[in-house]
């Protein structure tokens, strides 16, 4: 990589803010619709646990715990902000859009707009070694929704 080239496209203000003070790093109160899902990257050790509170097919709230690099922490925090209040189906679609964006599979512009702040991770696709960090939370949530709703 060029000297610092691309670095400020990755460690953006938005990503740094979300990794340093992730508001969604907290514990949800116990409730009937609460499920948890752990996701980790054995190769790099990022390890997060999502708490997902679902009520009548809608994500009422989400939170996370665990540890990882700035990119995985920020990505998790931003994902939670984006998906809070969305239906399970919408959440699943957004997860797919995000993962496709990072994997550089074709995603149309309209779908990207739906990702809002999560678009900030687009440039991670230039850094294969960090792709897993950015997608961890999204894969973890997809897995939880698959298990619970067969989506």
């Amino acid at each position, binding site marked *: *990589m*060029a*000297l*610092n*080239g*691309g*670095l400020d496209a*990755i*460690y953006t203000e938005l990503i*740094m803010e979300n990794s*340093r003070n992730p508001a969604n790093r907290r514990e949800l109160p116990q409730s009937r619709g609460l499920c948890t899902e752990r996701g980790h990257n054995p*190769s*790099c*050790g*990022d390890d997060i646990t999502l708490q997902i509170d679902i009520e009548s097919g809608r994500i009422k709230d989400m939170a996370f715990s665990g*540890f*990882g*690099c*700035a*990119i995985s922490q920020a990505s998790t925090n931003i994902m939670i902000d984006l998906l809070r209040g969305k239906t399970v189906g919408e959440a699943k679609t957004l997860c797919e859009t995000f993962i496709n964006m990072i994997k550089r599979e074709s995603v149309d512009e309209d779908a990207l707009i739906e990702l809002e702040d999560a678009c900030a991770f687009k440039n991670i696709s230039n*850094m294969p*070694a*960090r792709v897993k*960090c950015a997608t961890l939370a999204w894969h973890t949530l997809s897995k939880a929704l698959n298990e619970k709703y067969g989506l």
Partner: protein
Amino acid sequence: MQNPFADKIKDFPILAGQTDGKPFVYFDNAATTQKPRQVIEALTDYYETSNANPHRGVYALSEKATEIYESARAKTASFINAAKPEEIIFTRNSSEALNLISYSYGLENLQAGDEIVVTILEHHSNLLPWQMAARKTGAVLKYIYLNPDGSLNMDQASEIITSRTKIVAATQASNALGTLVDVRELAELAHKNGAAAVIDGSQSVPHMKVNVQDLGCDFMAFSGHKMFSSMGFGALYGKLALLERMPPFLSGGDMIEYVEEQSATFAPVPEKFEAGTQNVEGAAALSAAIDYINSLGIENIDRYERELCLYALEKMRGLDFVELYGPENRAPIISFNIKGVHPHDAATILDSYGICVRSGHHCAQPLMKYLGVNFTNRASFAFYNTPDEVDYFIDSLKSVRKWLGYGS
């Protein structure tokens, strides 16, 4: 301080090739070293002038390939002062060599209730084979832990190694912390109790004079690619009397004496352990690498690398945001963390400054857990690294903090 090998850096095309004005600092030598032109030429030369199946043809070219292969064995034996060339078995790497020992020696000699003693420093390659052997035989795996400074607790070693111990498997130098282990003492403890001593030389053989007879170990494993040679080629040293009693690890072509429909007898050591067409280009490269190291002098390399490592340690101790791991007496390896910065982020940012360092658990997860750290960054040196590179690295560490929004 100066690099006495400064005029050798040009031997390494990958180091000399990065001349587009951008810095290029390779500090991941514990993972694999770069290769000098002499080694790269040995590889191409083998294919251009000597390629044939060794041990199989009676024609001159096959004999030439055989000669290259067998002279590499003799050279490797003398490099670590093995008593005989046959005590060197060529493998793909350390990992394969250690698996060979665990299968052909471990499974044969362990019984339920026996004990295998390892250190908490072990790379997964000198750990998983012993977990496997323990699982299959009912043997128990025991650990020697560390002193607070990261050195091996030798008092504990002498308590844990007992008459129940059948195998002591230890690294001579930790790839994660750099810790140097007194493996001569461990081998002595093992032998006093009737156990075999298996030494992982992956991080020691490339960096210091290793004399297997003086250490008294029964087996030693190392990889060519960590000592300027090609990937996919390594060696197992074993005492001949032990190797002769061990069954083959892999079987097939080249390792037999007679084959009947229902049975076979095997070739003598070392062929018994080298099934199938071997990696002759790897042997040619390892020969060239050993010649190269000998031309510099392994003791000279050792002296300079230690000096450079201490120089870096000293400078890093001056940075209050850097946490350091590992003892004073170490191989040229520095494990560290930057406060508040995940090692992956640090490594990505250092990469943007042209500096290659490792980040992660360094294939030593039990060690990381024991130390209570998830991951570290690791800078590891070779003789071609310079004090200037260290200075640049130190400056870049300061920038890492800035990128992540810390004051300095």
